[in-house]
């Protein structure tokens, strides 16, 4: 069974498979999928590749200790994300779902171009409209975002100090401002 799992994971490559997809293909329960995954993990202990959960999907990856050899195969063009992109992604990731206005408020600058950028790169997606006045779109991060930052699931996001937040005041400001406009 674990060799079938290996075969299908090899076939899908970087697209990966969720636990649910694996259970559908192998026609076994998700609980059993866990066992198979563990077996496969064990097999890979002495191998060059390993099994990793990235962005909610199981993928076969090369072990990081061999990075230097693999990098010899590539003409390394490192395209890192800009500071503003990282900042915006962090704001979305810790507050999702979030509207553009709310992102602007936190950053203190207009973020529409940045949001379009992140949308087209597949780091974020819109997930319908919020109930706020004007029914603005809500954004959230994608599985691709998690994978890009080497994260298995949302729970693996680095902890952020969420204590002393008083966004309340900002909200009030926003509401009163809006009300004024509405009454005029």
């Amino acid at each position, binding site marked *: 069974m674990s060799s079938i799992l290996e075969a299908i994971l090899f076939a*899908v490559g970087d697209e990966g498979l969720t636990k649910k997809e694996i259970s559908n293909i192998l026609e076994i329960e998700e609980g059993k999928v866990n066992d198979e995954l563990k077996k496969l993990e064990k097999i890979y202990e002495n191998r060059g590749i390993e099994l990793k959960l990235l962005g909610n999907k199981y993928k076969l990856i*090369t072990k*990081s200790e061999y990075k230097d050899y693999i990098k010899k195969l590539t003409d390394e063009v490192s395209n890192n994300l800009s500071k503003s992109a*990282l900042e915006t992604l962090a704001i979305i990731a810790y507050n999702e779902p979030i509207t553009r206005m709310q992102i602007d408020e*936190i950053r203190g600058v207009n973020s529409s171009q940045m949001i379009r950028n992140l949308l087209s790169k597949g780091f974020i997606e819109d997930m319908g409209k919020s109930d706020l006045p004007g029914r603005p779109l809500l954004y959230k991060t994608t599985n691709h975002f998690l994978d890009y930052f*080497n994260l298995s699931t949302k729970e693996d996001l*680095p902890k952020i100090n969420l204590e002393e937040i008083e966004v309340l*005041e900002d909200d009030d400001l926003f509401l009163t401002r809006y009300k004024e406009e509405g009454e005029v």
Partner: protein
Amino acid sequence: MEYNFVINDFEGPLDLLLHLIKTDEVDIYDISIEKVTEQYLSFIKSMEEMNLTVASEYLVMAAELIEIKSRLLLPNKKDLDEDEYEEDPRENLINRLLEYKKYKDMIDTFKSLEEERKDIFTKDPINLSEYREVNAEKNGDITLEDLIEALKNFLKRKEDEKPLQTKITKKELSVTERTSQIRDILKRKRRISFFDLFEVKTREYIVVTFLSILEMAKYGEINIVQESNFNNIIINSKEGEVHE
């Protein structure tokens, strides 16, 4: 004051403020609005002197700082507003700074995660299209609507890659503007060749410049001299004339 950084180094006004506060080594809770406002404004001013465009967001923050500063100067009128708490005018700003700083501090963490991910590799999925083609023909699950939907999604993605719509308007030159430009030139040079004034070769520019010269000649601001036929035409500023 000397600055060894420019406005483009910052993500926005909050980033700039955090930097100013950090260089002062004060706690965000204890910021002196007076001092920070002064530093902020002088920085904005020096950027403008260097002819760097300062985004409007920075000016909004400048206005906000001045407002807070002036509210701090006002005497407390707590007796008048019973409902209202005795609120520190800085509070809102401090909260925003703290909130923003939280995410800014995460940038490095995400950067190192980004790097970590670069150490591992996966591969493209196996190309199964050869097998898929047959299937698609056989069971024909793909309807026209699916294709249209797929195209729509594709176009939407393309749309997002395009820059936001912007409007470029032609700058129109008025005779008054051009007249004062010519005045400036004459102030510096005293005399100039007629043809040198037509440096831009658009119809509009030529017409406006010509009208300006005619007008200036009419009001006696300039002398137009041509030594002989087909010679260069020289425009002289009339000496001793003072123009408004």
